């Protein structure tokens, strides 16, 4: 009331709301023209923090797709993971009117909604990858079902622990992020009725030595923990390092995510029991391909589940290392 002159982007007052239902997507005419004229397509994947170790397998996939499909595809995003800056960059790209397709992954499922809506309104095909932005104007999601992956992690852990009772300390590189929240929700569900008590999730942050120190200090106060579980690539390696250093190999169980090179070593050394791969190379590759195929051939855009492969010491040599 009283601010009738102020409008939300796209004209609806319900900013950040379910803009997905805002209306039909209409491809920008400049994009269809460029496709017709066979111009080199420009695809940008905005990852929430390219300085994360996990960005590099995605980048590999993107590069592979770019070479294969003959398009200009790149990973962009804010070093350090500042959501504000990620939105800024996306807005700039949208305004500039030179990209033909966008894929985004966000730390928060809500933060990107307005800018996703803005892209859609500008007629730029936009999808999410790695982390979902449900309820936004995205056209599809390429990645794993995050809640389900958390649930499987928990189920595996319950098997490993057997009928021991005690605490499970959960770590995440960014407890504040949407993907972390989703995996944790699944994880809790998977642990229900097991009698295991959850401590955490504890936020480690992305800086390796700080992450290690956080694990160390947390564990100093959790002497009776029977297991640690990580919700991501990067707190997992910190937790594993602590298990190894503190002589807890074989005493404390450890499960987590992704197949970073160190994770492989820890698996082989018996320091950790299991990790879940979400096939990040494929996430990068399929995102680009989905957009390009849609633009070139009108292939309809639909969700792609990159799956969740349970990796243990036994099958570790069969899955590609991520990084």
């Amino acid at each position, binding site marked *: 009331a009283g*601010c009738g*002159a*102020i*409008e*939300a*982007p796209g*004209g609806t*007052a*319900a*900013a*950040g*709301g*379910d803009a997905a239902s805002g209306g039909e997507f209409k491809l920008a005419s400049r994009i269809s023209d460029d496709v017709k004229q066979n111009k080199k397509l420009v695809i940008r994947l905005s990852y929430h923090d*390219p*300085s994360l170790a996990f960005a590099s397998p995605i980048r590999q996939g993107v590069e592979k797709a770019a070479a294969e499909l003959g398009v200009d595809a*790149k990973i*962009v*995003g*804010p*070093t*350090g993971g*500042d*959501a*504000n*800056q990620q*939105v*800024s*960059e996306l*807005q*700039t*790209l949208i*305004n*500039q*009117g*030179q990209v033909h397709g966008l894929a985004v992954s966000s730390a*928060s*499922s*809500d*933060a990107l*909604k*307005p800018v996703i809506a803005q892209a859609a309104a500008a007629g730029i095909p936009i999808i999410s990858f790695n982390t979902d932005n449900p309820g936004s104007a995205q056209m599809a999601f390429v990645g794993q079902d995050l809640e389900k992956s958390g649930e499987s992690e928990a189920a595996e852990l319950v098997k490993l622990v057997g009928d021991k009772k005690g605490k499970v300390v959960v770590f995440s590189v*960014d*407890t*504040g*992020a*949407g993907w972390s*929240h989703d995996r944790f929700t699944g994880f809790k569900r998977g642990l229900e009725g097991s009698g295991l008590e959850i401590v955490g*999730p*504890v*936020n480690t*942050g992305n800086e390796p030595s700080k992450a290690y120190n956080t694990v160390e200090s947390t564990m100093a106060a959790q002497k009776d923990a029977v297991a640690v579980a990580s919700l991501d690539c990067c707190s997992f390696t910190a937790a594993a390092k602590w298990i190894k250093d503190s002589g807890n190999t074989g005493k404390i169980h450890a499960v987590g995510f992704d197949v970073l090179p160190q994770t492989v070593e820890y698996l082989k050394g018996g320091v950790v029991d299991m990790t879940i791969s979400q096939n990040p190379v494929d996430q990068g590759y399929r995102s680009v391909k989905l957009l390009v195929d849609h633009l070139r051939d009108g292939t309809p855009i639909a969700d792609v589940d990159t799956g969740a492969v349970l990796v243990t010491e036994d099958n570790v040599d069969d899955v590609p290392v991520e990084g």
Partner: protein
Amino acid sequence: MTALQSDARPQARASASRPSGWTRLLHARESGTLSALVVLLLIGAALAPGFLSTQNFLTVGQQIAQIGIMAVGVTFVIINAEIDLSVGSIYALGAIVTGLLISDGLPWTVAALAGVLSGAAAGFLNGALTVGLGIPSFIVTLGSLSVFRGLALLLSDGSPISLSSGTPGVAEFTLLGQGRLFGVVPMQLIFLILTVLLGWVILSRTRYGFHTYAVGGSQEAARLCGIDAGRVKILAFVMSGTLAAFAGVLGLSFLSYVQGVTGTGMELTVISAVIIGGAALFGGSGTMWGTLIGVAFIGVLQNVLNLRGISSFWQTVATGAVIILAVAVDTLLRRRTRS
């Protein structure tokens, strides 16, 4: 601050003067940065496709708004010969307080006010400790950076706070950060302009502003002129804290989302902007326009790099290099004019 060689600033001090007319423009303290900004604009126009459009400029305006609002407060602190390293944490604190209260169902106006006031309180604490204990503000705010960050994490329990559009008041609240006046001008840009104007009036047209320069130049001399230097400094910290929290509230409104680590490291960008804008770290000089130019410089630089599709790692390199370059050019130009 460091490098506060008291003997190293004989003439730097002298240049707070205000010549008039053309000479004024040319000799202004901000001229170096202004020329750097002009060069950057020319480079943008020549090399960055899509740079020269109203839409793009409005977007840049929106992007710099939060940094700019914080920089206004920090300008007061730096002219006072102090520093505030805690603004990034206060930004988070303000946003989290507001977010929690909105989620609890309080009217958004009350919630936002509470958020801003939490920043004022944090700023007051910084000021009172600095003045009361006589410890350098670099240390006080280095410590409080951690304290406020910890509080932000504790309040939010480390989880993100997302404003769901179902909650009453959220739609209105998000207009602060996402709305556009007449559907065109970003509200955040309006807030920035208002804040800068207000800051300019206070700094150049009030006794308090005058006293700020006096205290920053020489605390003892100012005190002997009957100025309550402690009060002047504390007020500067309160402004800095208030505006940082206000920026945090805008950030929350913009992203509908905040978490404990939000705003980490922001202080460095803000301080860079103020210094690029010509304020001297040893206090006693600096202007609101300079700060605005410094903020614009950082925003445009980011924009040009984004438009050129420079990778984020190169952006990190470029931002750092250009900060040094801008200040170097400014310093050299000013040295040249003098001799």
